[in-house]
């Protein structure tokens, strides 16, 4: 008789565990916003590292840059009509998603709302190649953007909400490496804009902002190294950013700050044009490679 009870309970246990698993899987599917694009399917399981890196957003970089009084130069932006051309591999999709995010952020904080709308569309298009459609389609984002178009705080909130959703979706789909590559793209685009605006305006505050962005080099390199095996192009990307970092560290004032282990005030720095020109060329080449 005891055996009978044990057998019944074992069968119920299996059914109970199986149904729990189904519920869990259903929840996972819902939370992952039903990513259907097979091209964006996760290729690697996330690695557990003892040290990880939390990278800032393209929005924050643009916000800080705008506070330096930088002007808006539309010719610096990547052509929004090229979005379709980037649907070739995950690296190209991610890096250009980041580039368009930086362009959108630059337009947004320059109060160029019509342009912002266009770049939001470009982000949506490249985002869709990565399976991020839901982040752009939920909550009537396009309509809310139109409705609040003249209110900077509201549109910034809408865009940062999209960013929160894309971050979450990439994390749930175990595509953290895409977040890092996209950030590298956004950083290169922001730096390209900042260097060009600085060359035109020669302003201490703008130069300070350029240097702040360059100071992100080491953390981007470390974050990319954590995902080195995820995409074949990451190795070359790391090498290019390392080259920029070497040039940045060789700037006399930066070198002194590294030696003294003190945080330097970049707004008081003087940097020779020749030192900055080398970095500008490296950034220009890396960006050209990304957007071609």
């Amino acid at each position, binding site marked *: 008789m005891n055996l009978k009870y044990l057998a*019944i309970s074992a069968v119920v246990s299996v059914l109970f565990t199986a149904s729990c698993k189904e519920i869990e899987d259903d929840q996972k599917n819902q939370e992952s916003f039903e990513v259907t694009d097979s091209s964006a399917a996760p290729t690697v399981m996330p690695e557990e590292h003892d040290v990880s890196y939390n990278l800032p*957003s393209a929005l*924050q970089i643009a916000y800080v840059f705008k506070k330096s009084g930088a002007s808006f130069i539309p010719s610096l932006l990547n052509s929004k009509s090229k979005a379709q051309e980037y649907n070739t591999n995950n690296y190209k999709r991610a890096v250009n998603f980041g580039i368009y995010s930086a362009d959108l952020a630059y337009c947004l904080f320059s109060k160029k709302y019509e342009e912002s709308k266009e770049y939001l569309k470009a982000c949506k298009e490249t985002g869709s190649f990565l399976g991020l459609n839901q982040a752009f389609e939920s909550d009537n984002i396009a309509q809310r953007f139109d409705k609040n178009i003249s209110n900077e705080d509201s549109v910034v909130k809408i865009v940062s909400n999209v960013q929160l959703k894309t971050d*979450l979706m990439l994390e749930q789909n175990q595509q953290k490496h895409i977040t890092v590559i996209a950030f590298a793209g956004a950083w290169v685009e922001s730096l390209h804009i900042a260097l060009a605006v600085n060359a035109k305006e020669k302003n201490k505050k703008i130069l300070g902002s350029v240097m702040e962005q360059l100071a*992100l080099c080491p953390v981007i390199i470390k974050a990319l190294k954590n995902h080195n095996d995820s995409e074949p192009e990451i190795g070359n990307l790391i090498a290019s950013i390392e080259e920029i970092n070497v040039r940045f560290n060789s700037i006399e004032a930066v070198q002194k700050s590294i030696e003294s282990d003190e945080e330097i005030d970049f707004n008081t720095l003087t940097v020779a044009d020749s030192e900055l020109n080398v970095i500008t060329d490296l950034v220009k080449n890396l960006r050209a490679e990304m957007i071609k």
Partner: protein
Amino acid sequence: MKKYTKAFLSIVLLPFLMAFQGGDVLCNSKELKEKARQALEPYKYDSAELTRITYKKKESMKEVEVPLFIGEKYRIVFELEALPKQIEVQIYNKDKDSKNRKLLFSSKEMGDKKEFFFEVSKTRHVYVDYIVPPMEEGSYNGCAVFMVGYK
């Protein structure tokens, strides 16, 4: 009657006990980040990091480097409710391998709070260290979330 009680207990209790054998706490990233987002107000959302925590027999540590822009004001919100046992959050100005690093914050001051925040400015980096206490039996997992906002 006794035999029905016995059958009931084996049918109801056994599966219930089996369901909790893993020892993991459900890590609902979306829910945790939504909570953090609310606690971030009025700061603007910048980024968030979910860290998987595995309890081992010995105390262990996980570190997250957070680059910041000097001169900006930041709030970092922590959500620790998806953990089977409380961990300590420490924030430093330099990484774990640096000799002269300074402790800027410790969650010890917060007691058993599962949600709290830390505000910082005038620095280019902070290093968030999760100090994971040892667990005697089984393998336990959970996750910790923090969200960064700027003003």
